[in-house]
């Protein structure tokens, strides 16, 4: 075999109290798309950060084209030819597309920035990626998908040999993902080595050649994608027997709705957000909102939580007009809402896990009925135990937890408030497979054992199909179909979204 493009050998990285990576090997060949897999906290991002010079490594060697390199900053790594596009697009949305591509390395003419050259070269670069846009407009004119392309354009222009894509598709819809993949393949043909990190198994199997699996900071192995069945991959990631995983995949039986209606919407609308939605949610029912990004599923949930005003139709809770104007109105009606954007609207980063858990209950009680410290500890411990939240102790800051555990804390926060309706908006986004299944199971379990009404929103079709007893399909801010029982299938949902069938 030809000499490897990148060889990382015996990489060690220690954080205070944790061995983040121990003796990890990673090999990447030119013209290869290689996936790094592992649960949250397995060491994927740490390995990438060691490679890109964000963290200094504590042991091991990195060779690029046979030569040893020691990048100490992302800039040095970039000069070696290692470029990264991060999960969250980290560009300046108020600058123009061209400025974003050339920021920090502007071509100069007579000591001044040569704008013509910048704009011309940006245009060319993007054309190569088959993106044809006006590069002199500011970046926020364009959707996230385009922004992602711009980030890639920026990354590949600096003579990259290796391109690292960290969760590039987590905020893209299917069409946009397809477009991204086309570009990635083009880059592959140019002989670039690509490291692709994603939680979407489908995508890994679609685009990658090799998979390196990490678990608890250790190397499990490197495999060819074609020779590694999915179940085996998951088994290796979570470190369990194949049969266990099969069990995990087989969902428990779905919840059967009670007679009693909890919330009922009759042709509700919210100006500019939702055009027409009718639904009936019973106690003990898990209802899914399916639809593409921007179809109105999050907005509908937000309306049920008093974050969006009802401007048309009527919404009733237990038969009474709801009249929700603030989240607090909804909370008093025993509604809980885990928002889609965990970082922005969910966690309060600098507070401890305990404080984050009791926060909703405390808000309900009001600021003058302080929950005594002992009671807070009891509540926090109860939920850490019940939801199996991995924390060093309850006084750990929530921002230091992994995404999956943060999500569990947010769910714990709401369970502590004893809701009768729990709305979960994208609860499994950016979370490892094990935790994903746990959360799905929990949604069903809450409906079954406590008769809770649950709304489950997700971009992953199979997850909804497995979890929900009823599916509301939305398109263009309207409900277009309602599926129950055996009609709930990926195919059925897609047909409804596409609009081929009523």
């Amino acid at each position, binding site marked *: 075999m030809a000499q490897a493009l990148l060889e990382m050998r015996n990489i060690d990285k220690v954080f205070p109290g944790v061995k983040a990576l121990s003796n990890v090997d990673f090999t990447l060949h030119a013209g290869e798309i290689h996936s790094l897999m592992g649960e949250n906290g397995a060491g994927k991002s740490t390995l990438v950060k060691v490679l890109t010079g964000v963290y200094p490594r504590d042991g091991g060697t990195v060779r690029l084209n046979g030569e040893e390199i020691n990048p100490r900053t992302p800039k040095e790594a970039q000069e070696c030819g290692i470029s990264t596009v991060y999960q969250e697009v980290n560009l300046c949305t108020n600058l123009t597309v061209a400025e974003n591509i050339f920021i920090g390395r502007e071509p100069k003419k007579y000591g001044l920035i040569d704008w013509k050259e910048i704009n011309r070269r940006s245009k060319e670069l993007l054309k190569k990626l088959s993106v044809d846009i006006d590069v002199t407009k500011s970046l926020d004119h364009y959707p996230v998908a385009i922004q992602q392309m711009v980030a890639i354009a920026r990354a590949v222009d600096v003579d990259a040999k290796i391109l690292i894509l960290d969760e590039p598709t987590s905020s893209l819809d299917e069409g946009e993902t397809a477009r991204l993949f086309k570009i990635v393949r083009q880059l592959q043909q140019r002989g670039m080595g690509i490291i692709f990190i994603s939680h979407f198994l489908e995508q890994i199997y679609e685009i990658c050649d090799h998979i390196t699996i990490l678990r608890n900071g250790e190397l499990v192995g490197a495999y060819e994608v074609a020779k590694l069945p999915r179940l085996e991959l998951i088994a290796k990631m979570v470190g369990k027997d194949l049969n266990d995983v099969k069990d995990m995949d087989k969902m428990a039986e779905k919840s059967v709705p009670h007679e009693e209606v909890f919330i009922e919407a009759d042709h509700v609308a919210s100006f500019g957000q939702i055009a027409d939605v009718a639904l009936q949610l019973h106690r003990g029912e898990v209802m899914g909102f399916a639809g593409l990004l921007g179809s109105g599923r999050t907005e509908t949930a937000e309306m049920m939580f008093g*974050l969006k005003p009802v401007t048309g139709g009527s919404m009733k809770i237990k038969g009474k007009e709801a009249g929700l104007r*603030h*989240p*607090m109105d909804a*909370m008093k009606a025993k509604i809980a*809402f885990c*928002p889609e954007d965990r970082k*922005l*609207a*969910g*966690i*309060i*980063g*600098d*507070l401890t896990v305990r*404080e984050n858990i009791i*926060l*909703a209950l*405390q*808000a*309900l*009680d*009001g*600021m*003058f*009925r*302080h*929950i005594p410290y002992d009671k807070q500890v009891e509540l926090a411990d109860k939920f850490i135990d019940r939801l199996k939240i991995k924390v060093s102790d309850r006084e750990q800051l929530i921002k230091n937890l992994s995404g999956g555990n943060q999500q569990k804390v947010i769910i714990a*926060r709401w369970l502590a408030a004893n809701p009768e309706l729990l709305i979960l908006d994208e609860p499994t986004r950016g979370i490892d497979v094990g935790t994903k299944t746990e959360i799905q199971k929990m949604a069903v379990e809450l409906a079954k054992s406590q008769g809770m009404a649950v709304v489950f929103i997700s971009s992953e079709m199979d997850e909804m199909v497995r979890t929900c007893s009823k599916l509301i399909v939305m398109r263009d801010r309207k409900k277009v179909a309602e599926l129950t029982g055996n009609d709930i299938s990926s195919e059925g949902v897609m047909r409804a979204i596409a609009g081929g069938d009523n």
Partner: protein
Amino acid sequence: MEKWKSFTSSSLFLPVVALAVLVIFNAIFVDGFFSIQITEDGRLFGRIIDILNRSSSLIILSLGMTLVIATSGIDISVGAVVAISAAVVCTLIGGRGDGVAETPMFLAILAAVGIGVLCGLWNGLLVAKFKIQAVVATLILMTAGRGIAQLMTEGQIITVYYKPFAYISGVIPGMPLPTNIFIALAMVLLVVIVMKKTSIGLFVQSVGINATAAKHVGINVTMVLFLVYAFSGFCAGVSGLIESSFIRAADANNAGLNMEMDAILAVALGGTLLSGGKFYLGGSVIGAITIQTLTTTMYAMGISADQLPVVKAIAVIIICLIQSNKARELFEKWKGNRNDSASVTTKVKAVE
């Protein structure tokens, strides 16, 4: 040892160290810094008492400022509100030469503090309801406030001859310490109790760290903001009483001048980040005392009032450097090394 360890890593450690350094400096260079005498009528007297006396109004201001900053806001109008409060109390009591109050003093005090709260509510309205940036919103009152105070005093410096008015910042016969020290103490206690017994602290932090998430858990963000700005106004109102009582007059131009900056500095010295979130009331109180100690030290060393700002600036820079993240890191490293070498020596001993 364990106690020491938890103290060195606590948020109060560096503010305390900064103050301690100042105090040690004083102990060496200023004669009789620690001496406290008792006068015949039972009053305590000395430099330290003087520092506490003079820092009382800054302590009170920094309490309100801490909470405002914790919500990631700022209130630069407090100095002007001090002037308004001073103007209100002095005009109401009146500058009659025969020493008779035109309005009962407690009513005048109530009015002055009430006006302070009103000013705070105005700031709260602009920040919470109209969503104006805190600096800009409070800048309005900062510039207009002194004008309002001028209007009330009709451009005069009103000197109050009514005797009990001097007791606010002076010693009530028979008491060992000036009243304003007790007022500051009471305010600190009040805030500490409120923080312990209610969830306001938690809500304030939540709003400061992530207002969107706070809204999503049902916290009334608008109300929290109103509360902290009103409280800051309340603190400024109380400070106005103390400041005017010191000079027994309302000076619209100079009362509380630049105090907002000192209050912000006190909060920063106390370890609360200006970006909001976690706040440290104890740190702010120590910060306020540190600033006053600095001023008193300068005077004691014979530095003239004109040069004071320069020396103060240098000292502040040093204190800020001590408390910077970089210094913290270096300190942690040093502590780590020392622990390592300590454990090595114990091991060696064990081998022997």
